[in-house]
């Protein structure tokens, strides 16, 4: 296959118009020493049917979540994706378009982003949201560089309860800006406020706090926010957008930049991507915000319309003076989010957040009663919690595979001090039967 429409006759006519004898002549300016003298060493091409067959075989070499009960969360969650999301995303007017540089023929992409921006502002209580970042981790990293730029301070405090991969990404980005990233210790599964107090000072640009944090625990955001404000440091809150069906919007407790992994909003787990990064700010950060922004305006006929706006922040205008280098983003994943949130609506979002909390509570209580197991931390949780196990969590995960259960995320992988602890997430998809099976599986191991 090659998807090429031109016939050899077309090619001959085109060469004649160009005034050359062969296609090869068009490559004559490439120094001969650099021309490939052999074909690329790749498998031979296939027909569409052969490709389908090959891809199905490859897919079948994976065990997928339609066959397993997934209690792994740790930053990516097994929520149900309604059929409407897939069907809207399959509209090729959306998926075969690019960045809406020509607004007159891009109102679909522009308006859907405007709707997305509105919904993210509603969830987070912030003034403005961009059209998406690559994922939650890179969104947090760019938030840190922006806060450092605005405050002209060089220290970022990141709680140890923030997702380990987000912390790593922040460090990678910070290295280029010579921002000193310091980790705020944790205590009882949440950020240690005592340590935070000792670490705050005039050199601190920002704090990054995840809420609910990596262990599922709720953080004392109001207290932390007060401390940040007292020292002129920017509070960056990293959130799970679905938790905001029930939890206080970050704008109300004083966060100035909100980031988060948007995957739970209608995006499949897909082995880690593509997801989308949520990025929302208070107005004072608006002109430093990375990424695309859509604004409402009028056309020459007086009709409402939408355009990319405040583009002087962006790399294609500002080049080396841009606030970020992001160009392609995760627009189609943001479309999934806006369709999903439309489907859920005001009531659905709240109900779903509550349902996850109720199911998580059931499982947490049942596991707490198994001899040898205990709940790791006392802080309140929403949909995820850690348990201390009498058996190596890696062993637990392995042995429950036979029962078609993915038991959770062994915390020892990222926290040596928590090597006996297992992180368990519960979405609306986990049935009582599955949870009971997990419990009986755990009971069978002690």
């Amino acid at each position: 296959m090659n998807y090429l429409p031109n016939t050899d006759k077309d090619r001959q006519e085109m060469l004649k118009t160009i005034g050359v004898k062969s296609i090869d002549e068009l490559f004559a300016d490439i120094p001969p020493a650099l021309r490939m003298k052999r074909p690329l060493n790749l498998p031979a091409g296939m027909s569409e049917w052969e490709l389908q067959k090959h891809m199905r075989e490859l897919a079948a070499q994976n065990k997928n979540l339609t066959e397993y009960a997934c209690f792994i969360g740790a930053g990516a969650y097994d929520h149900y994706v309604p059929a409407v999301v897939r069907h809207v995303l399959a509209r090729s007017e959306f998926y075969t378009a690019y960045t809406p540089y020509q607004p007159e023929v891009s109102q679909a992409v522009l308006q859907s982003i405007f709707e997305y921006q509105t919904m993210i502002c509603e969830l987070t209580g912030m003034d403005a949201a961009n059209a998406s970042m690559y994922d939650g981790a890179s969104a947090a990293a760019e938030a840190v560089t922006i806060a450092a730029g605005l405050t002209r301070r060089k220290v970022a405090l990141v709680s140890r309860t923030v997702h380990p991969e987000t912390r790593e990404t922040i460090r990678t980005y910070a290295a280029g800006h010579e921002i000193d990233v310091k980790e705020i210790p944790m205590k009882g599964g949440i950020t240690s406020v005592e340590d935070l107090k000792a670490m705050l000072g005039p050199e601190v640009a920002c704090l990054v706090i995840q809420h609910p944090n990596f262990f599922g625990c709720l953080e004392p955001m109001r207290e932390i926010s007060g401390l940040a404000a007292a020292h002129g440091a920017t509070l960056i809150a990293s959130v799970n957008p679905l938790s905001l069906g029930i939890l206080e919007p970050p704008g109300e407790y004083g966060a100035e930049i909100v980031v988060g992994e948007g995957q739970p909003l209608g995006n499949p787990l897909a082995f880690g991507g593509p997801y989308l990064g949520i990025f929302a700010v208070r107005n004072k950060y608006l002109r430093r915000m990375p990424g695309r922004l859509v604004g409402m305006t009028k056309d020459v006929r007086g009709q409402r319309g939408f355009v990319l706006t405040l583009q002087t922040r962006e790399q294609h205008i500002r080049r080396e003076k841009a606030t970020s280098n992001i160009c392609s983003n995760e627009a189609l994943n943001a479309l999934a989010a806006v369709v999903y949130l439309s489907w859920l609506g005001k009531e659905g979002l709240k109900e779903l957040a509550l349902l996850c909390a109720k199911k998580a509570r059931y499982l947490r209580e049942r596991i707490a009663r198994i001899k040898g197991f205990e709940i790791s931390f006392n802080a309140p949780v929403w949909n995820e919690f850690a348990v201390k196990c009498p058996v190596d969590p890696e062993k637990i995960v392995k042995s429950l595979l036979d029962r078609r259960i993915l038991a959770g995320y062994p915390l020892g992988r990222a926290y040596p001090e928590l090597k006996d602890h297992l992180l368990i997430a519960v979405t609306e998809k986990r049935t009582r039967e599955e949870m009971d099976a997990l419990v009986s599986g755990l009971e069978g191991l002690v």
Partner: protein
Amino acid sequence: MRLEPLIFEYSRPGRKAYSLPALDVPDASIDELIPAEYRRKTDADLPEVSEVDVVRHFTKLSQLNHGVDIGFYPLGSCTMKYNPKVNEEVANLPGFTELHPYMPEELVQGALKLMYDLQTYLAEIAGMDKICLQPAAGAHGELTGINIIRAYHRSRNDTKRTKILIPDSAHGTNPASGVLGGFTTVEVPSDSRGGVDIAALDKLMDDTVAGLMLTNPNTLGLFDENIQEIERIVHSRGGLLYYDGANANAIMGICRPGDMGFDVMHFNLHKTFSTPHGGGGPGSGPVGVKKHLIPFLPVPTVEFDGKRYYLDYDRPQTIGRMKSFYGNFLVMVKAYAYIRALGADGLKKVSEDAVLNANYLLRRIVGYYDLPYDRHCKHEFVVNPARIKKETGIHTMDISKRLLDYGVHPPTNYFPLIVDEALMIEPTETESKDTLDYFADALIAIAKEAYEDPEKLRGAPHTTVVGRLDEAGAARNPVLRWVREGSQAR
């Protein structure tokens, strides 16, 4: 076609689209679940709509957009080629979509094998020694590469290299990536043939320069014939060469960045390898490196020990992580399918026809539009309406807007910056001669209209659902979210 209300404007209290599974565990009060001090006091004001409202809204909205499936989309440097439908189908297989990134490796051997093989194929196409699939887009790949360059020099205690050289024709992401990676950027001028000015490079390249970022063919669609001399100058003075793969659609199977001497590069899977652009994303920007830079690649890499595929986190000199997990996996699935469908022969034909199409289109319109660098181009070219502008006052913007009335997407406008009023045209290989002829005829007709009826161009587009939009007003008074009538904007 009509404008579509906002989804919020369809909202009616109590209307629902969602369905959730019934509660099958003992109920608990909200106070038992989440203490009041953590809870929100007012609901998020999401729309209350039915499922059919959702479907009709987004379907009607979709009809207001141009896409590759609707018509020609010759946006320069964006490679808006046809997105094969089979790739969409296979990427939707549950064996790919229903995988948690932290599933035990033994359960996801198919996914890891796909990634490993894709790394191998891309390395062969690039002439590089190893590929990392983690970056989520081209600019993300650039930043990864810049971080690798910084880490390389630091590993040699060579700390005085604080600058990155970037040609004045470069994509805007290049200077932004350089700065984000902690460097200052220095612009290298172009010569009269559109390539890097060798004398200027020779002067700028010293021991404070970490590397040069180059796109070849460049944004003018021109292959830099002096690439070997550029390579010699940069490498002999301790710098590294970065290849921006945005224009790789011109070179597959013909020449390779690795053979040209580049040390590190990125591909855009959403350009060269046919994965859809999604209205702005998701993309994927794999980074390839030569042997001496392998230790600095992001973690984790995908490896194979002869029996099983696995993720390798144990890389002491790594620059770290560029994002969570392993990259935009479903985009990788589509690019993998594309490479397997085409094979070596097919990919070479892609580049040949991409270059043929661009040169044909160029020759069809030259004479009506000015060509600042009169050479054979590669996969794209840049013209401008210099004479038209001088004689009629018509701008590139007017021409582009008028093209919309002809049912095609305009080229990239006003870029590269080194050409006044640039129109940057990349037809891609998946367009037929007939489509190119239609587009050329439209451009020629518009060139004539500029003289005969310039107001028609200044007022264009006439046939789209909205006319020209007040962008200055949008920036002066930003309205970035919808606010319910009567409610207080936050």
